[in-house]
């Protein structure tokens, strides 16, 4: 057991290491750097800074230094914000998490309910309507729907604020602060839910359709159980089971923020931070962020494997 888990972890580490090297090289290839782009600096000062940040060293040496620091928990210093990367992450990641957790919760809730009903009424007009809705949700360009809703709900009707997390200059506290945040996050949450709900509803619907056709559902009916019990006790448990693996895959999305949505809604999350850093080529931050997502992805995959084995009585570790 342990030797096998070690093997699995070893492979995970190997992939992460390879990914970090690849990411590092790619960013190094990316044209321009933080210093070159800054017109306020004199050439001498630029050279000085390059020396200081180690940007004049060969690529591999820089990677080794970075990796070495990373192993000691030091992910570098943001050139743009002049703060440690980890500290910045800690500042921004929870804003992203707030958006993600609320919209993920809504997405799952809506997807399960609609998916179950659509599966139960397969081929009905409701089901067809749901199917079209699902495809619509899966086909919307995320940035466009964001802009479109801002234009309608914020610019034209002025129901909701167009972006940000707080009204500019606001110094509300307590309940008022909370209200303001909720007010601001409504629109991005709607968009994120909309974007996620399509594929998840489809997933639950098709899972449920498969499950409903199983022999044991017929047995449950033959026992005289009510349809509600058949559906929600016998069928849903089986349909939800494979979905547990999805929880792991949600991990990067939960903490990694959404580059596009945060950018469109000017939400002070980690995705927005990335987008800002990308324009100024703040390498330590970019590198840190990308590795952060890679780690989350790998952990998420591992987690979903484990969750599946824990949840399904048929599979024993």
């Amino acid at each position, binding site marked *: 057991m342990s030797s096998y888990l070690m093997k699995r972890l070893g492979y995970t580490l190997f992939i992460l290491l390879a990914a970090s090297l690849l990411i590092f090289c790619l*960013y190094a290839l990316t*044209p321009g750097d933080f210093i070159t782009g800054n017109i306020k600096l004199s050439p001498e000062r630029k050279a000085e800074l390059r020396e200081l940040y180690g940007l004049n060293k060969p690529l591999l040496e820089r990677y080794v230094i970075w990796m070495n620091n990373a192993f000691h928990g030091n992910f570098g210093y943001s050139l743009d914000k002049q703060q440690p990367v980890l500290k910045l992450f800690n500042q921004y990641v929870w804003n992203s998490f707030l958006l993600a957790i609320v919209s993920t919760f809504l997405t799952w809730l809506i997807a399960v309910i609609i998916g179950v009903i659509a599966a139960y009424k397969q081929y009905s007009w409701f089901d067809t309507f749901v199917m079209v809705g699902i495809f619509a949700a899966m086909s919307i*360009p995320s940035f*466009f729907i964001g802009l479109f809703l801002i234009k309608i709900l914020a610019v034209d009707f002025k129901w909701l604020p167009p972006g940000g997390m707080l009204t500019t200059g606001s110094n509300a506290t307590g309940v008022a602060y909370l209200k303001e945040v909720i007010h601001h996050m409504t629109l991005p949450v709607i968009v994120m839910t909309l974007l996620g709900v399509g594929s998840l509803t489809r*997933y639950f619907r098709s899972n449920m359709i498969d499950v409903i056709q*199983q022999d044991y559902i017929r047995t449950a009916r033959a026992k005289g159980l009510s349809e509600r019990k058949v559906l929600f006790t016998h069928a849903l448990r089986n349909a939800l089971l494979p979905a547990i693996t999805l929880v792991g895959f949600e991990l990067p999305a939960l903490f990694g923020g959404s580059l596009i949505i945060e950018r469109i809604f000017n939400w002070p999350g980690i995705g927005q931070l990335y987008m800002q850093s*990308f324009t100024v080529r703040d390498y330590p931050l970019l590198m840190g962020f*990308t590795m952060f*997502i*890679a780690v989350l992805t790998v952990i998420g995959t591992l987690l979903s494997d484990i969750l599946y084995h824990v949840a399904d009585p048929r599979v024993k570790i």
Partner: protein
Amino acid sequence: MPSIQAEVTNVATNRPQAVKSSLWRQSIRKLLKNKLAVGGFAVVVFMFLLCFVGPLFSPYTDNKVNMTMMNKAPNIHHWLGTDKLGRDVLTRVMQAGRISLTVGIASMVLSVFIGTLLGAIAGYYRGIVDQVIMRIADLLLTIPSLPLLFIFGALLSEWKVPTDYRMYIVMLILSLVGWPSLARMVRGQLLSLREREFMQATIVLGLRDRRKLVNHLLPNLVPLLIVIATLNIGGAILSESVLSFFGLGVMPPTPTWGNMIDAANNMIDFQERPWLWVPPGFSIFATVIAINIFGDGLRDVLDPKQKR
């Protein structure tokens, strides 16, 4: 396991039929009965005609800068208004669609090609080759795709690729990011096909490898590929639009739906002139939803074991 009742209906449909027909013909017949899928296909065809034939009927294809007609709202001459250079937005949308659709299809072809080739090699030869290919795929799947796209996009700008050629590079980028998941799918399908009894039968019969591959494996792989390819076009169109919207994909003056929406980055255009960026957005939406619905219909008839 399907219910007895499903079996009853199967027994009926599986009975010998008077006319000989291949599975292909059967599938097409079934597809035509799916109204939603046929509708989706109709929209796809319409979008293609609009983008490739439509401009022929437009008097504004020369894209001349017309200072007298700047930023006009939709009117009788310009159904979707004009932009800041006085160009007709409808014509621009059609011309942009040409590029967007071409990029979508071309990058699909490329990534399906790479994905199928690598996935098939991995699944067929197994062993070391399989290990190497799948490890690389794992690696690429670990790196988030948007940052990857951004990096590539930035590289593009650096290399000063002429705008005319940028769209080709964008195709390449999209397929580079898209192949690993495809390769995985193809490999999985191939491995499960290998276990099927009719493939075992080819071993018992002592068929040559070439025949096993060409006559038995590939024909059973093609339906899945068609489905994947169709659904992939939609995905590629979406990705291209994101890249172009952020100024990292195809750049003006070459119009694409994505970079037309870029107009929304301008506060006045965004608030006052929605005709500049709303039509391309809806074009993307309409095209992708139609492709997805059609692709799903295809999946139902070609690859019924996959998820509905």
